[in-house]
């Protein structure tokens, strides 16, 4: 069972209050992107064994979207952060570096 702290309302919400929103920080290709790049944007997703960044929505609570960083193996939660950003906050990345030396996720290390 996952428990994520919603940054909008501060509630430690259990998984049944949340709705998953898939991979975080997916940037739309285009408007003049190649078909290959647009296909990647639509269909290619990370499937890491370890650190992962995801979007979640506090559906049965305040209704807000937010981001979460967690480990797919141990379900450890490294932190949650607000939805309106294109990259994880540096403090969170620092925390993950300390907990998982040598990790990488897309361009983040």
């Amino acid at each position, binding site marked *: 069972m996952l428990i994520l702290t919603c940054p*909008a*309302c*501060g*509630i*430690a*919400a*259990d998984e*049944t*209050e949340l709705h998953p929103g898939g991979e975080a920080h997916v940037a739309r290709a285009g408007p003049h992107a190649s078909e290959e790049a647009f296909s990647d944007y639509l269909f290619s997703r990370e499937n890491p064994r370890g650190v992962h960044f995801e979007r979640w929505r506090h*559906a*049965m*609570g*305040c*209704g*807000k979207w937010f981001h979460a960083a967690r480990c797919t193996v141990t379900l450890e939660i490294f932190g949650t952060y607000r939805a309106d950003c294109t990259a994880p906050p540096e403090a969170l990345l620092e925390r993950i570096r300390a907990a998982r030396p040598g990790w990488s996720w897309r361009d983040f290390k």
Partner: protein
Amino acid sequence: MSERVTPAAGGRNGALRIMGPESRGMVTLRADLADETIAAALGDVLPLGVPGRREGRHDGAKGALWMSPDELLLLCERDGAGALVARIGEALDGLHHLVADMSDARAVFTLEGEEYREVLAKLGPADMSPRGLAHGEVRRTRLGQIPAALWLRGDTRAEVICFRSVAGYLHDLLWQAAAPGGRVGYFQRADGPPA
């Protein structure tokens, strides 16, 4: 216009008195609550002010409940909602906002009895211990299969707000969870939640 349809009124079940569903005057206001211009413009219209995060304020039939960083639920007399919507609309004229009379969309249950924490804890994932949910706090969560807002008014009184269309479901859910013989007593136990 069609009449509002609500399920039969509740009563006492075991140690808990379940009252409702009651149709109350409710106005939803969506605006950036952190914006000081909004708070200043609302000044006289909201005598209770803008509540802080997860806070519920009340004064008689009037209430102001924090729903999310950009949503307030305002309680008023059942027939006063239309006028309140108009007053807020005037006060926030020119500012980005949305205000709507939601009285017909929602129902309120009132739980009376010392065991309301026990009963609500059976139905959802919210931390119902006194440390996890304090008096005056509004906790939006899940009860059974539906979203609901819990508002603790005191040691023996809590209010539960849900959509009117699922009020019958919530009534049955509360009724069954409060049934005599189903007492858990977790919050009274010595090895219960940490103080």
